[in-house]
């Protein structure tokens, strides 16, 4: 088992003919992802990689009988919200948006549309989701992942790879890893996925990698305290970040004195999250957590 995706998941790629879209679609296919169709406006009736049909709209793909479980969105920032809403209206259960730089106002509309739908959205501005050795919908390097028992959640990209690499090398392996996105407004929160990991019989513990800005980690730790039996290991990046500056990610900003690392760590610790003081000790902390818990 795993959460959200597995080897049977059929995947659509929105923006499949673009530079990023085509590069990563190929990498996903290499990993074993079942990509069944692509969408790019005005590129309908062509083939991607000589085998995958490209449509102008999702509706066209569905009319041809394509059964789509998930979509991976690489559409440029100015048009991404439209593509996400198109996917929501086409009732695709899982929407993974990699695109960085979507205006916040667009994401408020996307969130409102998601709230009235059954779709789950990951991202935007994220590396995506991967179920080790089965299915990769995203841009993470596949080879660092190995099937195992740890769920991984993160607001970051390369920092997630750092953690996954350690978890694999320590011999635990992963069930599913999700980059939830570095933007202030994202499709789903840490809490949404913690709920799924708690129910997944194969996941034995979760590693949650947060950063400064917002209060998502605090809310997640409340959920850990009240609803989780499995241990959760937490790390927060940005202890040395100055207030009022955006640290690369649009959502990584301490504003009005809120969203600092010490504040988050304190709440997380109080709520029973096992804290890794620096990224090098994530696997070590996980070992302790599994023993102590």
């Amino acid at each position, binding site marked *: 088992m795993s959460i959200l995706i597995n080897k049977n998941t059929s995947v659509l790629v929105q923006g499949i003919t673009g530079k990023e879209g085509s590069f990563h679609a190929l*990498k996903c296919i290499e990993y074993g992802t079942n990509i069944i169709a692509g969408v790019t406006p005005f590129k309908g009736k062509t083939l991607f990689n000589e085998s995958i049909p490209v449509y102008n709209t999702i509706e066209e793909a569905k009319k041809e009988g394509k059964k789509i479980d998930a979509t991976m969105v690489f559409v440029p*920032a*100015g048009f991404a919200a439209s593509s996400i809403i198109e996917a929501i209206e086409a009732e695709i259960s899982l929407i993974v948006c990699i695109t960085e*730089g*979507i*205006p*916040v*106002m667009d*994401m*408020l*509309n996307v*969130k*409102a549309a998601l709230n009235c739908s059954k779709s789950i959205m990951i991202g935007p501005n994220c590396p995506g989701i991967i179920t080790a050795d089965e299915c990769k919908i995203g*841009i*993470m*390097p596949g080879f*660092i992942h190995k099937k195992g028992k740890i769920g991984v959640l*993160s*607001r*970051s*990209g*390369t*920092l*997630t*790879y*750092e953690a996954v*690499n350690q978890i694999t090398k320590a011999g635990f392996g992963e069930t599913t890893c999700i980059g939830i996105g*570095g933007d*202030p*407004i994202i499709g789903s929160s840490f809490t949404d996925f913690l709920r799924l990991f708690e129910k997944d019989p194969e996941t034995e513990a979760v590693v949650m*990698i947060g*950063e*400064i800005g*917002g*209060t*998502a980690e605090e*809310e997640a730790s409340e959920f850990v305290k009240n609803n989780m039996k499995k241990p959760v290991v937490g*790390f927060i*990046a*940005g*202890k*040395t*970040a*100055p207030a*009022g*500056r955006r*640290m*690369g*990610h*649009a*959502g*990584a900003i301490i504003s*009005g*004195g809120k969203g600092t*690392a010490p504040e988050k760590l304190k709440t997380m610790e109080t709520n029973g999250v096992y804290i890794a*003081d*620096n*990224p*090098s*000790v994530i696997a070590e902390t996980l070992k302790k957590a599994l023993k102590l818990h």
Partner: protein
Amino acid sequence: MDIHEYQAKELLNNSGVKTLKSVLCRNPEEAYRAYQVLSSSLVAVKAQVHAGGRGKAGGVKIVKSADEAKSIAEKMIGMNLITKQTGKEGKIVRKVLIEEGAAIVKEYYLSVTIDRKISSVVFVVSADGGMEIEEVSKNTPEKILTVSINPMHGVKSFHILKMLLFLGIKKNLYNDFSNLINLLYNAFVKEDMSMLEINPLILTEANLFIPLDAKIILDDNASIRHPYFSDFEDEDEEEPLEIKAKSVGLNYIKLDGNVGCMVNGAGLAMATMDTIKEFGAMPANFLDVGGTADSKRVETAFNILLSDKNVKGIFINIFGGIVKCDMVAKGVITAAKNIGLKLPVVIRLEGTNAETAVKLINNSEMNFIVSRDLADGAKKISDIVNKTKTNL
């Protein structure tokens, strides 16, 4: 993206919100003439910098004559204004806004922001206008009202009513107040603001609601649909190194420490800075070289790090994913040779092709210290810069 008060007011005016008459001045003579044009006996001279807390720091003065406007402007332009929000280094004042006076009956606080937790636009209002809202929120949270607006429905009358009752505004002013709130909401959404703060919002003797001050932050991501955003940029307000970095697509933020950092990925860059601090040194910067760390980019990154004279050593931390470590290593070696790099460098490589990369570094003439672990690398560079410190 931060903008100046005069730009914020221009945006508000274009959206139909009235503000007091004002003139932007770059020298004392302009301030003298502005006073004469404004035909108001009391006039405010306001320093234009990207920071709040100007009043308490001497950045806002009331004057009663053209001569006084001129002499105050003379003192203000060129001064280094240090407010609670500028940090200890302060900001040089280059422009002042000369604004007519108003007969104030009451001051309110009003801001519009985005609440990340509930994914909504929210209005925050208080009858304690002119105060610092962080202080009010800490000491007397009951004096603040937050009203969230569902983006699907927009502002409704009941939202206005809630705010009006909370602020104790009289019923006969409902229409004016409602009009203002709607204009502000529409401007906020249409112009893609991340924050709009009016402190204070004044009620005048003529029963008009007027934003006396206005602070706006625009959503950088929305510049794709608002070409005018770039006209609002003020390079004088930014760190020159940050402008240089931005022009080549690097994400750089200058800090106070002495370990120059070059990392791929924002989260890993922050975590790297934190780890350096854990080992007793301080990061000189945040620098995300991004996904394409080729020699040209690395060279620019090195040059930026070296322009900061505090930097005593460099820590490069690369986790190769799609980016291959050996490609980065080649880039680093070429760039370091090109610029004749002499500072100590610790380079940590992990992920795709890390082994090949380590060999490349070891076989190069560069005196780099190689590490395979983040904590180990951070410790090595911290020890090096701390040693340099004691030797001095």
